[in-house]
Structures are given as C-alpha cells and as structure tokens.
C-alpha cells in the first residue's frame, strides 16, 4: 500500500485516485477507507507512504483519526483534503501533526505539488 485515501464519499475517493494518476503516479497501490475507523483497520495490514484524509466524516472524524495515527507513528505523512480549510482549522491540523492541508476544490496540479516532496 503506497497511499491510503480516507473519505466517506465514494466519488471523492475516485476523484483523488484519478488526480493521483494524473499527477504522474500511475503505478502506485492506492487503498481506500470510508472513515477513520476503517482506515485504522487498513493500517494494521501495512503502513503507506502517505495518508490523504477528509476532515468531516461519520464514525470518526479526520482529526480524531490523525490523533490516533500519531499515537503510534509520528512521522507518517498525513494530509487533509477538505472543503473546510479555514485558518483556524489549518492551525489545528498542523498542531495535531498533519503534514499538509489541501482545500477542495483542487486541481491535479495541486495534488502533484503536495505529492512530489513526499513520494520523490
């Protein structure tokens, strides 16, 4: 597993998968989860190079998911992809251990810019 995409919207997971391919990363193994609880289960199977997570999700929010990931792994790159990208939320995300925060709407170029420093 190279990238774990966590979003309750199936269509947004598909869009992220496509954006990753359009950014030039066609051969990557991208796994999906619908929420933080399911994502934590996926992480038991292996550690990805990057997690891309929504913020507002049922079962477990993206922020709670990030905090649980950081309890066991402080270095795993973790990026939020969310439409709620206020300055206050950005500060909260970064202080909780997020690597970056990408706001929706985003272009394939935006995805490429955040992937390059992590995957290269």
């Amino acid at each position, binding site marked *: 597993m190279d990238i774990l995409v966590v979003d*309750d*919207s*199936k*269509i*947004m997971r*598909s*869009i992220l998968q*496509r954006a990753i391919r359009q950014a030039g990363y066609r051969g990557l193994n991208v796994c999906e989860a619908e929420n933080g609880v399911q994502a934590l289960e996926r992480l038991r199977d292996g550690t990805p190079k990057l997690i891309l997570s929504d913020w*507002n999700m*049922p079962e477990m929010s993206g922020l709670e998911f990030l905090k649980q990931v950081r309890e066991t792994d402080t270095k795993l790159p973790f990026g939020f992809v*969310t*439409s*709620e*990208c*206020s300055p*206050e*939320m950005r500060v909260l995300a970064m202080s909780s251990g997020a690597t970056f925060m990408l*706001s*929706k*709407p*985003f*272009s394939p170029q935006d995805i490429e810019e955040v992937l390059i420093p992590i995957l290269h």
Partner: protein
Amino acid sequence: MVIEVSQSTVVEIVESIFATMMEIDVFVSDSPLCVTGDRMTATVYLEGEWNGAVSLECNRTQACQFAGRFLSMDPPDAVDDDVRDALGELVNMIGGNVKSVMSKDVRLSMPSVIDGNNYELRICGSHTRDVSAFQFFGGTFWVTVLDERRSRPN
C-alpha cells in the same frame, strides 16, 4: 465573530468548484427558482455561531451530468448512488467553503440528498437569504443560502 458571507462570495465559490473539479463553466443567471417535475436537492447544514443551510437544486439529468464530469466518464443514464454522492459532495464543498470564510465556531453537517417529484423542502426556523441561479451547458441550477429566522424583539 461571524463574518457574513455575501452572495457574490457564494457565486465565486460555486464558479471555482465547478471549474476546478469538473471543468464546467457556470454563469450567473437571473432565472427565478423553478424546478418542476423530477428534481434533486442536496443540502448541508451549518450550526454554531451561525445557523443555516446551503442547498443545491437541479434536475436529474443535470445531476447525472455533474457525476459524469466528476468521474471523467459519460453521464450515467439514471440517478444512482454515484450521482447522489456527487451532488452531496458538491454541496459539501460549497458549504465547507462558505463555512471557511465565516467563523471557527460553525460546524458542518453531512450532506443530505433528496431525489423525487413534487416535494417541498422546508427547513424549520429558517428563511431564504440568497438564491443564486447558474447557467451551464445543461441548463440552470440554483444554490440557496438559508439562515436562522431570528425572532423580532417585543
């Protein structure tokens, strides 16, 4: 502190989302809200220092066109879960961006999507603040911002 979001800001948000995520150019129109027959309504609710909702109304054909563009494929022939998901994601993005310019103490709900005929959506205790009509290659759709109806002082 709550920063009021103007109608022009909502228009900018909608134009940006449609152009960036779906490569659809939308233009503000003066068409009054008028969706008859088959229709779909996606809504997100905002709660906290500001209480209200943002909804997107369109017909089923348009919703299928949005889903097709979202997924870079031909539009589905009929409304399915992908189409409902696409409409929910669209209004989630609009609502999320509205929230982002508003206040840190506003929470965004999960989106809800209604699909049917001749229904009326009533959000109790709210009133319509702005209705923006948008024209694109598939016709006109509407984005409505509702906020809490405040009681008048005695």
